[in-house]
């Protein structure tokens, strides 16, 4: 159990670093979704299924979708101004 916790903590640390080092927001949405999934597995391993369920739904589905849609809207607006 402790080994599983350590593995998941390590993966979450790596995942968080990857998200921070991803350069463009639209790519960050994808790495953030994977990171959210890793985080929810960590919560599950730590015997917190309720939190894991919230995390998997919010962190790997709703938030990345909102980032992508916001990014597209901003890109459309700046492209319109440049024209």
């Amino acid at each position: 159990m402790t080994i599983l916790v350590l593995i998941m903590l390590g993966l979450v640390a790596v995942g968080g670093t990857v998200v921070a080092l991803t350069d463009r927001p639209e790519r960050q949405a994808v790495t953030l979704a994977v990171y959210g999934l890793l985080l929810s597995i960590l919560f599950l391993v730590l015997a917190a299924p309720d939190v894991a369920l919230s995390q998997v739904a919010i962190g790997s589905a709703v938030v990345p979708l909102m980032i992508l849609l916001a990014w597209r809207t901003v890109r459309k607006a700046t492209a319109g101004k440049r024209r």
Partner: protein
Amino acid sequence: MNRTSRIAVFVLGAATIAVLFGFAIARMPAFGAAVHPYRDAAVAAALARQAPNVVTSINFDQRGLDTFGEETILLASVIGAVTLLRPADDERRRRPPDAGRTLNATRLAGYVLLPVTLIVGADVVVHGHLTPGGGFQGGVVLASGLHLLYLAGSYPALRRLRPLNWYEYGESVGMGAVVALGIAGLVSGAGFLANVLPTGRFGDLVSAGTVPLFSVAIGIEVASGVVVLLAAFLEQDLATRSSA
């Protein structure tokens, strides 16, 4: 404020937080240890109210006021985001584009998973007091499941399945139901959001007093809130065009 003083403020704040954090960590019970005073109290209280899922009992009964505050914050932020994303003066509504190119595998997965996800979401909401989950988790599953129709089909298809004002009503009905539950507790003399209903038999679908009602109300509010929030983003992206 120049750069040097900004850095001085940051260093002061960071050092204070580091010291306080160190003290807090030093006094914490060891990770995975056997002594948990709060757990002992919370589990006893949950079992006394016939709620097998202690987490939901804490959320929707023992600390119901915290959940009430949380959902008010969610409601306020949805309203704020919708206000910010409404069409501006230089923007006009347009007909949203039909489905773009979608892989057949994506369409199949979306249409197969759509009913499954909706049933799982409803299940998570309704059984919140028995198994892991509850109104918040189930509500988010319901709302994100609905958007499989956008991934698998098209935005117009999602729009037809999503009469937006229903979800706006849903959000206020859910929040209003929570307030009504709270006032019912006040009227009975037990206090705001107190668990005033009979708790029933341990493990039954209808048990644990007000917990399932509170959970379903939160489920309606969260599902509608997330749908309204994502709809504001989708409308801004797909159904609005800058006229400038």
